[in-house]
């Protein structure tokens, strides 16, 4: 989880990822950042995120992203 925060900070340092819960809905992260993020996460955690999982609910908060990552790690 800490590693995720680091990645997010690195991508776009402006927001407090511990607090934000509507990163997508409030247009804080755009699709470019999401693409970069996915690519980074896939490398970092050695997972493949299918296109199906790219829905706002999975990227609105750091926690949601973490859930997604653990889900995909288990599936591996």
């Amino acid at each position, binding site marked *: 989880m800490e590693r995720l925060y680091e990645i997010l900070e690195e991508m776009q340092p402006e927001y407090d990822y511990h607090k934000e819960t509507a990163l997508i809905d409030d247009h804080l992260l755009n699709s470019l950042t999401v693409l970069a993020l996915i690519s980074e996460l896939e490398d970092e955690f050695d997972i493949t995120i*299918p296109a199906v999982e790219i829905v706002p609910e999975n990227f609105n908060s750091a926690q949601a992203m973490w859930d997604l990552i653990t889900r995909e790690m288990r599936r591996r």
Partner: protein
Amino acid sequence: MISYCSIEYLLVFLPVVFLGYQILPRSVRRYFLLAASYGFFWYLSGPLLLWHVAVCLCVWLIGLRLRNLLEERDAAVKAAERSERKAIKAQCAGRMRRWVILAGVICFGILLSLKYTPFFVDNLNGLFRHLGIHVQMKVPSFAVPIGISFYTLQAMSYIFDVQQEKLEADRNFFRLTMWLSFFPLLMEGPIARYGTLAQKIWNVDRIQGENFQKGLWRILYGVMKKMIVADRVNSAVELLYTDFAKYDGGMVFLAAVLFTCQEYMEFSGTIDIVIGTGECFGFVLPENFNQPFFSKTISEFWSRWHISLGAWLRNYLFYPLSMSQPLKNLTKKCRARFGNHYGPLVTSSIALFAVWLFNGLWHGAGWSYIFFGMYHFALIVTGSFLAPPVIAFCEKHNIDRKNFLYRLFQMLRTALLVTIGEMFFRALSLKYGLLMFARMIRQASLQSFADGTWLKLGMDLQDYVIVALTVLFVFVISLLKERGCNVRGSLYAKPVIVRALITGLMVTLILLFGAYGAGYVPVDPIYANF
């Protein structure tokens, strides 16, 4: 053309449906609603209804086939050794893909052949002429069923969702058909997904007083937008777009502004009527607009304007494309080379190009629509490309990007860009669009406002004033919504007599200031032809 904002829909069809719905027993109610939807379809498109039935059948059967495949797969996976599981899954995915492709070929095939054949044949003829080949085909013309572009996308979203295991295929043909033909959604969307809506409609719960009152307000709000603004500016828009060559640049700009205004009021007004109708029954239809003119960038604009189309394109075209293996690899390479911003920009530009080509073509078979798509594609890519330098520039010169004035500047800029795009969208053809744009720039002048030409377009000063006041009213409501205020909720909390006064006032304002009757030609539903 008939629209939702008509006597037959609002004063005949709807009351009959509401009444029938309320007094029939629940078991009959859902078939009544289905019959009403198909009756509405028949009234608009006659026997072309069969095309719709064909799509429903195709989607239903292929959905069931996919469901079977999934069930077989799950059984096989359970029985198999751990090592074999991956192979079984892959095999199933391959089979499913074939069925999905079949569904796509049928659904999009019908759409393409009915709607786009004339366009392609015409352009092929042009190409042959150009190449000196003496083959000229007759340009066919087909009658197109109402809302075909909308229900085709809806049908495909169902197939994709089943394939991706987001939902289970429906065994009940009527439930599926009900969702694909629900009468408010037929003409101009929004493109509603099966998962959020189908069961809700199928439940056919009794109409509740609160829902009905709020739905009615929403319908009246939509009628107001349509009749007071969209219909009132119609004559000026018609005139300016046909005879723009007689006017100077200022008038061409006025044409663009008036049309943007008209289109927003017409489209969002119709959607208000649609969602209001759903709300009366107690069905929550997806929103299609989220105060688009408060957008700070073009890409934000498209997440606030025609949301359901944007969502469809994002879910079923943009992400699958940009997450495909070749593009993923490209993203990786580019990120290493150009960094976290420009790296993905390369990949997403490729995916975005596909999205905007599709978006343009979806709006209609014509070069002006393709240009419209490409215009927005170019703006979005440019916007992303310029974002880092702009941020750097602002930081260097100490400009606060969260400052109100800066945001206002962003919103006005976005609105201006959108307005120019809409000019090409409405122009009679791409050639005329370009001519209009050239005229707007080259002959920029305020002369026509000074000498009163702007008052001779079929709109007098009072017309402009009432249009401006209504737009202002819509702006205030939008601002309240933007601030998170639940306008209708708080109005409903007021005493009965206040609520009655609000309803009465809205009806009165519509009948007093609406542009109807002798001397007015209401605008045709702009999106119903798509």
